[in-house]
């Protein structure tokens, strides 16, 4: 951490320390153009949200960054190295959780480490730490079908944290979680963002959610997806969650984004 800080201080004129750089990404599915010429930087240690109407290709872009989908043109670089496929410096949290139903919470959380060939005792102690971190202590031996939707996504989040990747890619992680749990979950996520100091790239279609959790919001336009606007909400994060949700800056930003997106919705 101190190394990169030092480097950052020396090269003051470099605008931002971008972990993930997206350059000229285009994606076509046959005749359908999903993404057109996307150029984006994702600054280190920040939570950046990709927000847009459904069908704007935000999940596609996230999966291209993850190396799960090949772009038709353009390049993604992580720490300066071009992405050719999935890599250990990126971890993915799935919209439908993608938990193995035959495996316990413990095995699911430790699965990324298991695939890396880490020994059982070591990976379980790391997994136990993150299970506690997401608030699932005592559920280690439960199976996914014994958990609620919100708890299942906590497992997915713990699995992503456990592999200690620099960049966490979250694909609409709360969309299958009910409203009350989602609020609690968003607050927990903010706490984890603060604690883990990783770079988060977050996909959502909820304006409130985006404004509440993000340092930076990238608005994508409808198909073909292009970057239409980048917003940095000025919100005092030290305030209580309820205060933030009533904060004038928060409400103004939500309104501003809604005005920008409104014409896409008919």
């Amino acid at each position, binding site marked *: 951490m101190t190394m990169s800080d030092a480097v950052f201080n020396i090269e003051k004129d470099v605008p931002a320390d971008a972990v993930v750089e997206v350059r000229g990404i285009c994606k076509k599915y046959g005749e359908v153009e999903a993404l057109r010429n996307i150029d984006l930087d994702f600054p280190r240690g920040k939570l950046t949200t990709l927000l847009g109407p459904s069908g704007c290709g935000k999940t596609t872009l996230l*999966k291209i960054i*993850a*190396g*799960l989908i090949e772009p038709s043109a353009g390049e993604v670089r992580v720490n300066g190295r071009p992405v050719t*496929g*999935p*890599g*250990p410096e*990126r*971890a*993915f949290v*799935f*919209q*439908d*959780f*993608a938990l*193995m*139903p*035959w495996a316990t919470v413990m095995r699911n959380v430790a*699965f*990324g480490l*298991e*695939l*890396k060939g880490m020994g059982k005792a070591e990976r379980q102690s790391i997994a136990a730490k993150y299970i506690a971190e997401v608030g699932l202590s005592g559920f280690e031996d439960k*199976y*996914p*079908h014994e958990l609620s939707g919100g708890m299942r996504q906590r497992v997915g989040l713990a*699995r992503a944290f456990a*592999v200690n990747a620099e960049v966490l890619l979250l694909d609409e992680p709360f969309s299958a979680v009910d409203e009350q749990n989602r609020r609690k979950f968003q607050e927990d996520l903010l706490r984890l963002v603060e604690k883990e100091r990783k770079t988060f790239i977050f996909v959502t279609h909820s304006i409130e959610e985006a404004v509440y959790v993000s340092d930076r919001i990238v608005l994508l336009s409808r198909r073909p997806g292009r970057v239409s606007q980048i917003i940095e909400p000025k919100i005092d994060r030290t305030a209580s969650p309820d205060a933030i949700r009533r904060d004038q800056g928060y409400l103004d930003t939500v309104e501003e984004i809604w005005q920008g997106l409104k014409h896409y919705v008919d």
Partner: protein
Amino acid sequence: MTLFGYRVPMMASLIVWCILWELVGQSGAMFLVPPLSSVLAAAVTMVQTQTWQAAALITLHSFVVGMAFAIVVGVTLGVLMGRFKAVDDLFGIWVNIFVSAPLSALVPVLMILFGMGETTVVVTVFLFAVWIIVLDTRAGIRHVPNSLIEMGRSYGASTFALYSKIVLLAALPEILAGIRLGLVRGVKGVVIGQLLVSIIGYGELFELYSRSFDMENFWALTIILFAAAMLMSAAIEHIEKKVDYYAGVR
């Protein structure tokens, strides 16, 4: 089930049919149907004979070898068809033809190819069992959620780990259902193979007893075979239920 307000135990219907069989047998109305009690007595004596034990062993051996091939080939082909469109296009039509084809008609041809011995019976078991295993495995693989595969890839699973730790386990309920149905068809295959080749094992005994109208032994043989097939099927079903418990909820 309750009848006139009384709880009827589970196996009651079986007992009703057994009593009916015994009555028809005792009445002597049909010589093809001897009383159940004498059939069971014949079964007890029969299983102690050298002839039966040798026949059962040969039959079991052909069955196990044929099934082993059917499971290995069936699951492999099913996985390939489920994952790769080219393989699916290449084999799909044949699998669908063979799964419903009257395979008994092919056994004489197999006899020409593989001779009058055990090989023909093994091939018959294989041909009877393999197609349904292919189809069920393919269906299971198709149902594996794409996000589970993406999860494996994004956390760096090798191709081997992806299949052994994720894909096969996710498709296990369907694969087991295929194997269970394959087992039942394999039992048919082993008897039909031996009957048509008609010189070894259970088929030879069937032929012997039915030709000499030795109905007690004929029925005893049939009951033992049915019981064995049902037991195997029930055993797999038991495993299936356990697996469903973990993997069915997805």
